[in-house]
C-alpha cells in the first residue's frame, strides 16, 4: 500500500483518500468547520489548512480537499500553521460573529467556540460595526440567527444533495452572504431538522430545544425512534442525574426534570438511518408528557372508576379470565412494545390461554410466509443503495420518511425508481422517481402486469421491490412470486406497525382485526386485551368497532395513553413507553436494536413484560424472571431467530432463515431435474386479476404527521397539521363529476373539498387525523368506500 508522512510518521492510504481522512483515521487532530464526513467537501472555511511538501516545494493546502499522493510530506503543527493560518482564519471568521455565546443555545457544543479557545487569538483587531441581517423564522423546528453564520455551506449542501430540497440556499456574496429561503414563508422539507445538527455553531438552532438546557447538563441515552418500523437510531437527551450531594438540581428537579425529554439527536448507523433523521423522528417526543397519560391501575365497577394497586388488579383480572374458553379470548395490539414484552405475552396467549384470536392490522393473511416459507424480507435497507431498479408500492414520504434519503441518493446515482400510488407524491413530483398512478380498483391488474415484467426479467440488474405488508393478499403474493423468478431481485417488506417483525418472530401469527371484531359482534368473544393501541383512532370502521366493543364484557386496556376506546374498558393498566423502559425491537429488515431506559416510570406505570409476568405467575407457572436480562436469556434459548443475538453489544441482525435462491439458479443447481425440485414452488403461480368497474372512491391515505400514533400528539407539528380542518383532496375532473347529493353528503360530514390535480381520476383522498373525535365515516374493510 502507498504511504504518506504526517508529522514525521508514516501512514498507509487508499487511492482517492484525502489527507484529512487519513489523519483522522490515525487520531491526528485537524480542525474543520465546513467538512462533514457524510457530504462532499467544498474547502470553504480553510481552517483545515496544512503544509504539504512534495519534491522540495512546500505549499499550504486544505486537508479536506487534497488527495493523498505518494512521497507527500504533511505538517499539521508547524509555527506557520499554528500562528498564521489557524489564528488568522479564526480572526477572519470572527469578524462578524456576535459575542452572544451566553445566550446562544449552541454554547458548550459549538465548534467555533471550542476551536477559538484552542487556536484563536484572545482579541480582535477589527474596530468597525458588525454586519447585521434581519431575523426570520421559516420553520417551527429551527431557530435561525443569520448574524452568527460563518458561510461554511453545510446546511445548503445538505438541503440540496441529501434532503433533495430546493428552496433553502445561500444567497448573495461575501459580506452580505446569508442562508435562507427565497420569497417563502415555511420550509416544507421533511428532513430540515438535520440542519441544526450539522451547523458547526449556533446559526441554526433546534427550535424545540430553545433556552431549555445547557449541553453539560444533558445526558444522551441510546434509543430507537418509535414512529415507524425502520427503527432509526437516536439519542434521547435528558437532564443528568446528579448525585444527591448536588442539592439544587435535586430539589424540585426530581419530579419534573427526570420525566422530560429535552431533545432528540441522531445516532450514526450507516445500515439504518445513516446519521440523518426525519423531522417526525426528531421532534416527536412531547407525547411523553401528554395530558392523557394514564397514571394508576384502575378498575371500573358499576360505572365508577377506582384506582387500585397492581397486585389487586392482576388478581382481579386472573379471577375473571381463568375460566374462559380459549376461543373467547382475543388480543389486539399495534405491536408498539418491545420484543421481551412480546415474548412474555406469547407465553400467556399461546401457551396458557391457547387463543388464536390475535390481530395486528387490517389485513392479516400472510402472503409472505406462503411464498417465502418464512415471514421476513430478504433485502436489507442498505440494499437500496446499490440497486439498479427500485420498485415501490405506496407512499414513502408519509409513512417511512427516513427511507427518502436513500431513494434520493440512489436516484442521483442513476437508479431507476418506480413509484406505484394513487396520487403523485413528492418523489414523483420532484422527478426523483417515475410515477405510475392508478385507481385502487385497478391495483390487482397493475400489480399483475408488473409481476409479469419482473418474472420475465425485464428489469436488468439488481432490483429491489419495496412493499408495505398491508397490500391486498393477491397483489403481495403475485409480486413476491415474481421476485423469486427474477435473476437478481430482492424484496424489502415494510412493516406498517413499528415492532410487527418482532411480534411475528416470537411466534405470533397476524389475523385481521376485522375478523376478531366480527366475532365480537356475534357475541363470541368474552375477554379482549387491547394492548398499546386504540381501535377507534387507528381503524376507520368506527361504528362497527364501537358496537363490537360494547358487546365484550371484559376489556383489558393496556396502554400509556387514555384514548377513545378506554371507555369500554373494565381494567385499565398504565404501560411505560419506549423511553421509560429497557428493551429491544426488531426492525423491518430483521435487525434487533436495543433501547435503554432514559426516564423514570410515569407515576405507577409499569413495562408490559412486568404485567404479563404477573399474569403468568397467577396461572401457576413460575418463570424465574427478575429483570429484562433473564427474558433475553430465555429468548435466546427458546427462539431460533434470537439464538445468536448479543444483546450486550451493538445491535445486529437476528438469524436469517436458510436463504432461498432465485428459481432459475435452483433449476441450474438441480440440473433441470424437476423430480428433485422443491415441491413448494410448483404451486406458486401468479393469480390473474379480476376486472372491476371504476367508481368514485374515498381513500384513507397516510399523512406524515397527522396519521402517526406518536407525532400527532405533539404540538410542534400543528403548524403543518392544522388539526381542526378536515379536507378531501381530488382533481378537478373528479369534483366536477360528483353529483350534488354526493357533495352534500361530504359537506354534511364537515369536509371541505380541495382541488389537487396530482390525484388520479375518481379518487378522493382523506388523510385521517388521529385526534378527530367527530370522525364518522362508513368506510369498508380496506379503508375506502364508494360514494
Amino acid at each position, binding site marked *: 500500500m502507498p504511504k504518506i508522512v504526517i508529522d514525521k510518521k508514516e501512514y498507509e492510504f487508499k487511492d482517492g483518500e484525502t489527507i484529512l481522512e487519513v489523519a483522522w483515521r490515525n487520531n491526528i487532530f485537524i480542525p474543520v468547520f465546513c467538512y462533514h464526513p457524510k457530504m462532499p467537501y467544498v474547502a470553504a472555511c480553510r481552517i483545515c489548512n496544512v503544509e504539504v511538501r512534495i519534491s522540495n516545494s512546500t505549499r499550504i493546502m486544505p486537508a479536506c480537499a487534497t488527495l493523498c499522493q505518494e512521497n507527500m510530506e504533511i505538517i499539521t503543527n508547524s509555527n506557520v500553521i499554528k500562528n498564521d493560518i489557524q489564528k488568522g482564519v479564526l480572526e477572519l471568521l470572527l469578524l462578524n460573529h456576535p459575542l452572544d455565546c451566553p445566550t446562544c443555545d449552541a454554547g458548550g457544543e459549538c465548534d467555533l467556540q471550542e476551536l477559538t479557545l484552542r487556536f484563536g487569538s484572545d482579541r480582535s483587531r477589527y474596530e468597525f460595526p458588525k454586519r447585521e441581517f434581519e431575523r426570520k423564522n421559516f420553520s417551527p423546528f429551527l431557530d435561525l440567527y443569520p448574524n452568527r453564520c460563518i458561510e461554511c455551506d453545510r446546511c445548503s449542501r445538505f438541503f*440540496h444533495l441529501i434532503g433533495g430540497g*430546493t428552496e*433553502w*440556499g*445561500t*444567497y*448573495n*456574496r461575501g459580506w452580505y452572504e446569508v442562508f435562507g429561503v*427565497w420569497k417563502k414563508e415555511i420550509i416544507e422539507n421533511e428532513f430540515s431538522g438535520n440542519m441544526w445538527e450539522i451547523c458547526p455553531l449556533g446559526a441554526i438552532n433546534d427550535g424545540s430545544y430553545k433556552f431549555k438546557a445547557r449541553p453539560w447538563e444533558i445526558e444522551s441515552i441510546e434509543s430507537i425512534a418509535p414512529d415507524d418500523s425502520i427503527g432509526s437510531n437516536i439519542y434521547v437527551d435528558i437532564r443528568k442525574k446528579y448525585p444527591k450531594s448536588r442539592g439544587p438540581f435535586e430539589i424540585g428537579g426530581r419530579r419534573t426534570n427526570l420525566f422530560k425529554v429535552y431533545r432528540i439527536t441522531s445516532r450514526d448507523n450507516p445500515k439504518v438511518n445513516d446519521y440523518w433523521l426525519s423531522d417526525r423522528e426528531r421532534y416527536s417526543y412531547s407525547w411523553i408528557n401528554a395530558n392523557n397519560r394514564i397514571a394508576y391501575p384502575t378498575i371500573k365497577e358499576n360505572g365508577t372508576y377506582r384506582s387500585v394497586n397492581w397486585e389487586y388488579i392482576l388478581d382481579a383480572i386472573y379471577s375473571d379470565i381463568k375460566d374462559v374458553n380459549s376461543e373467547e379470548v382475543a388480543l389486539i395490539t399495534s405491536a408498539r412494545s418491545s420484543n421481551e414484552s412480546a415474548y412474555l405475552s406469547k407465553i400467556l396467549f399461546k401457551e396458557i390461554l391457547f387463543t388464536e384470536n390475535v390481530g395486528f392490522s387490517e389485513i392479516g393473511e400472510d402472503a409472505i410466509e406462503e411464498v417465502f416459507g418464512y415471514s421476513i424480507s430478504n433485502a436489507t435497507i442498505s440494499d437500496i443503495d446499490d440497486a439498479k431498479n427500485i420498485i415501490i408500492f405506496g407512499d414513502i414520504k408519509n409513512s417511512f420518511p427516513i427511507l427518502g434519503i436513500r431513494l434520493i441518493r440512489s436516484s442521483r446515482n442513476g437508479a431507476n425508481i418506480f413509484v406505484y400510488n394513487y396520487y403523485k407524491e413528492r418523489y414523483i413530483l420532484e422527478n426523483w422517481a417515475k410515477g405510475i398512478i392508478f385507481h385502487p380498483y385497478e391495483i390487482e391488474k397493475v400489480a399483475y402486469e408488473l409481476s409479469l415484467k419482473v418474472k420475465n426479467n425485464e428489469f436488468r440488474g439488481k432490483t429491489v421491490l419495496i412493499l408495505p405488508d398491508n397490500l391486498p393478499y393477491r397483489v403481495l403474493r403475485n409480486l413476491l412470486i415474481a421476485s423469486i423468478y427474477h435473476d437478481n431481485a430482492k424484496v424489502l417488506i415494510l412493516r406498517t406497525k413499528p415492532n410487527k417483525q418482532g411480534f411475528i418472530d416470537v411466534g405470533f401469527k397476524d389475523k385481521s382485526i376485522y375478523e376478531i371484531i366480527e366475532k365480537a359482534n356475534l357475541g363470541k368473544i368474552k375477554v379482549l386485551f387491547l394492548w398499546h393501541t386504540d381501535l377507534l383512532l387507528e381503524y376507520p370502521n368506527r361504528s362497527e368497532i364501537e358496537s363490537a366493543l360494547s358487546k365484550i364484557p371484559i376489556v383489558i386496556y393496556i396502554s400509556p395513553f387514555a384514548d377513545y376506546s378506554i371507555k369500554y374498558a373494565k381494567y385499565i393498566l398504565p404501560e411505560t413507553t419506549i423511553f421509560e423502559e429497557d428493551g429491544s425491537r426488531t426492525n423491518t429488515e430483521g435487525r434487533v436494536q436495543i433501547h435503554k431506559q432514559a426516564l423514570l416510570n410515569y407515576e405507577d406505570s409499569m413495562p408490559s413484560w412486568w404485567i404479563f409476568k404477573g399474569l403468568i405467575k397467577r396461572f401457576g407457572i413460575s418463570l424465574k424472571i427478575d429483570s429484562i436480562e433473564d427474558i433475553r436469556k430465555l429468548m435466546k434459548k427458546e427462539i431460533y431467530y434470537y439464538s445468536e443475538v448479543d444483546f450486550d453489544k451493538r445491535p445486529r441482525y437476528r438469524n436469517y432463515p436458510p436463504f432461498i435462491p432465485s428459481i432459475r439458479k435452483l433449476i441450474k443447481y438441480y440440473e433441470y431435474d424437476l423430480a428433485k425440485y422443491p415441491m413448494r414452488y410448483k404451486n406458486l403461480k401468479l393469480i390473474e386479476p379480476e376486472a372491476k368497474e371504476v367508481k368514485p372512491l374515498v381513500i384513507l391515505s397516510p399523512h406524515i404527521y397527522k396519521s402517526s400514533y406518536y407525532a400527532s400528539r405533539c404540538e410542534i407539528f400543528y403548524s403543518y397539521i392544522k388539526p381542526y380542518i378536515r379536507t378531501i383532496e381530488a382533481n378537478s375532473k373528479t369534483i366536477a363529476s360528483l353529483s350534488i347529493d354526493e357533495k352534500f353528503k361530504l359537506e354534511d360530514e364537515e369536509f371541505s373539498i380541495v382541488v389537487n390535480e396530482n390525484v388520479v381520476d375518481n379518487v378522493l383522498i382523506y388523510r385521517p387525523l388521529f385526534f378527530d373525535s367527530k370522525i364518522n365515516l362508513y368506510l369498508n374493510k380496506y379503508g375506502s368506500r364508494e360514494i
Partner: protein
Amino acid sequence: MNLEKVQELREELENLKKIYKKGNSIIIPALWRVQEIYGYLSDEGLEILANELNTTKEKLLQVATFYHFFHTKPTGKYHIYICTNVSCMLNFAYEVVDELRNILKVNENEVTPDGMFSWEEIECIGLCDQPVAGFINMKRITNLNKDNIKDIIENPQNYAPEKTKIELI
C-alpha cells in the same frame, strides 16, 4: 404572462443551447438573456429558465445573487451605475451620486415613477483613467461630473439604446 417575451426567451435559449452544451455553463448567459428581455430577473422568466434547463428557480437565484450585474428587482428602462471606488471617489463621485439622487428623486435601486430610470453604486469597473466612470445600460460613460450627468438624464438615448445586448464570448 407576456407571451411575446416568453416566445423570445425560448428562441434565445434554443440558440444558446447550441453553444453551451456542458453542465451548468449555460446558466449565466441564459440569465443575461432573461435580464435583457424583462429588464430584470422576473419570476416568470426564471421559471421558464428553470424548466428549460432542468434546474430550480432557487438554484438560479443563488447564482444570480452572487453577481452584481443581475437584478432581482425591477429596474428602469435606463439603469445607471456610478463607480465609487478609490480613483472615482477622489474625483468627486459622491457629488455625482448626490446630483443623481436630487434629479431623479429616488434612492439607490429604486425606479422613478415614470419607469425610465434607476441607479446604483458599484465597485471598480477598470476605467480608473477616466474618472468618474459608470455605465448606462451597460454602455460606458466616463469623465462624469455634476453637469454632464444632467445631460445624460435628459437625453439618455444619445448614450445607449433602450436594450443593450451583452455580447458573450
